[in-house]
């Protein structure tokens, strides 16, 4: 009975959310984004589809999952652990047990969420910096564990991952569907009472406790949801590059969703998406300048053979620090402002400029 009631409640919640969403002006940017995403493959090469756009879409899920956790005040520095667990388990379930890859994708996400419960239980009572350290430490130790059981995991050498659908355009649309659904679910969660509780805990945990929010419970819920979607992103990512190895646990992958969320706009739904577009474009297109940079700057830095990659990462670090200090809300408010400016009539424009 209680379950039925809860189900009916959540259903009416979704219905009213959708109605709200429809009434507000937010629908247009979503439709525009989806249309752009849907027609993109017709304008670019197959290389760009599978190497730039597909990872971009998958990282949007991954960054959104991190962003959901951060909205409850828990900044994980080891989300790559869950990306990797999702990737490895979903691939291994198909290879070792012969499960259909769509089933193992979900099972992999569930296993990631289950391990998320364990780590979350250790984390829910910790302050921000201890939590960051524990999650980061977990992403380091998981490499040891996967390497120790190499006979089963094949993590040291890596292996080819089985695919749901053919690589290229079919996989792109599959990823797009997964991404749209996941981000919509995350949107509903962030809009619901649950999301409100997360934000209350983020702002002031003590006060949240005082008004009757069971902070440990809600922080654990945030952990579970976040690690589920991180696992899903991991499963999809391993398929998108058709290969999985220990490198997926590298700090680079832990820091990526964080950078994407913060650059795009922390705690907003569009932030991680904007961030993943920015970071993927930088990561994919700046390397083409590398050979020019090598020729130009090699005399200055004789101890490195390729100046480009470290210089790019250095620049990314500086850019990130500048964003945190000078634009703590990320770049998406700027885009929003530009959008409102274009949309509004001249009369309203005057009003806006105030």
């Amino acid at each position, binding site marked *: 009975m209680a379950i039925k009631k809860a189900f009916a409640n959540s259903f009416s919640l979704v219905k009213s959310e959708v109605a709200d969403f429809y009434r507000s002006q937010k629908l247009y940017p979503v439709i525009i984004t989806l249309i752009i995403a849907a027609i993109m493959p017709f304008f670019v090469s197959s290389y760009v589809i599978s190497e730039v756009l597909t990872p971009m879409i998958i990282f949007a899920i991954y960054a959104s999952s991190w962003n959901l956790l*951060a909205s409850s*005040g828990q*900044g994980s*520095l080891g989300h790559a652990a869950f990306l990797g667990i999702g990737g490895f388990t979903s691939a291994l379930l198909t290879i070792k047990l012969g499960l259909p890859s769509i089933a193992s994708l979900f099972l992999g996400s569930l296993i990631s969420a289950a391990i998320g419960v364990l780590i979350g239980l*250790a984390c829910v*009572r*910790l*302050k*921000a*910096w*201890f939590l*960051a*350290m*524990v999650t*980061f*430490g*977990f992403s*380091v*130790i998981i490499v*040891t*564990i996967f*390497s*120790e059981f190499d006979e089963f995991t094949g993590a040291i050498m890596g292996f080819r991952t089985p695919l749901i659908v053919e690589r290229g355009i079919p996989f792109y649309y599959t990823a797009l569907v997964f991404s749209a659904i996941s981000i919509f679910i995350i949107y509903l969660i962030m809009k619901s009472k649950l999301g409100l509780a997360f934000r209350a805990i983020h702002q002031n945990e003590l006060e949240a406790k005082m008004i009757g929010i069971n902070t440990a419970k809600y922080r654990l819920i945030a952990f579970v949801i976040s690690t589920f979607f991180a696992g899903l992103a991991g499963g999809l990512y391993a398929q998108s590059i058709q290969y999985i190895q220990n490198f997926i646990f590298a*700090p680079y992958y832990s*820091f990526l969703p*964080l*950078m994407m969320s*913060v650059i795009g706009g*922390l705690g907003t739904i569009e932030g991680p998406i904007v961030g993943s577009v920015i970071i993927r474009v930088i990561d994919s297109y700046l390397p083409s300048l590398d050979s020019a940079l090598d020729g130009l700057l090699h005399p200055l*830095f004789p*101890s*490195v053979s390729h*100046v480009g990659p*470290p*210089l790019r*990462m*250095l620049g*990314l*670090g*500086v850019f*990130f*620090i500048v964003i*945190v*200090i000078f634009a*703590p809300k990320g770049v998406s408010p700027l885009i929003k402002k530009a959008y409102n400016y274009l949309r509004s009539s001249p009369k309203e424009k005057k009003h806006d400029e105030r």
Partner: protein
Amino acid sequence: MITSGLIQALLWGIASGCVYILLATGLNIIFGVMKLVNFAHGQLLMIGAYIAFTVTSALGLNAYIAILVAMGAVALIGVGLERFTFRKVLGTDKLNEIFISLGLIYVFENAAVLLWGNTPQQIPSPLKGTQLYIGQIAIGYDRLLAILIVGVILFALFLLLKKTKIGLAMRATSQKSSASMLMGVNIEKVYIFTFALGAALAGAAGALYGMIFPFDPSIGALPTIKAFAIIIIGGLGSIPGAVIGGLLYGIAENLAVYLLGGIWQDAIAFALLIIVLVIRPTGIFGERGE
């Protein structure tokens, strides 16, 4: 044979523990006074190791004098960090400090790659390869001297905190910054000094680390985790706790290598971190929660 192996692991543990004590103490001082955690502290260790390496190999300075150079240079970097990055986000969302440190990790690691390259280096110590034998136990003079140097630095730190005016100001600020400001303490100066002091300790740790172990630009992350494990064992903000925690940690790490194998050397830090935090979220010797 087994006992001598154990004693050797114990001695090595104390020596490597000493390096981590310096790092953990630096983090602890900064936290105690500024209520700030710098996750890029291990990267300061790495920069310190490279600076000591450069002045010994390029300028031919004695490696043990290079420790002082590394301390000074990293302290200067610390002043810059406090002034231009951390001060801007102090008192805002705690996550911002984590974000800033993360950006700094990118900056330091890649700057080090650009300046010094990716190949592992080791600081050429004048005592390299010489060992003291006690029965079947062998320990390098470098490690013994490292223990001695850490002892001297910690004693100097103790004097600084207890006997000088700036030490008094630091202790006052760590108790209540607003009250000490009202008593005429220049908080901004205390913050800069504290951060520089913490960074200098990381620089010294780096120079000692570079004499004992080979290093490259990416080594910084693990010492940070280890320093955190030590702080958690010893309690946040407690310097004697960090010393005890550091010794316990170094011994545990080397025993794990001796008994379980080398692959577990780094995993032990995390295992300790989790176990202690689950049992006691404020650390074993910690009194204050925040």
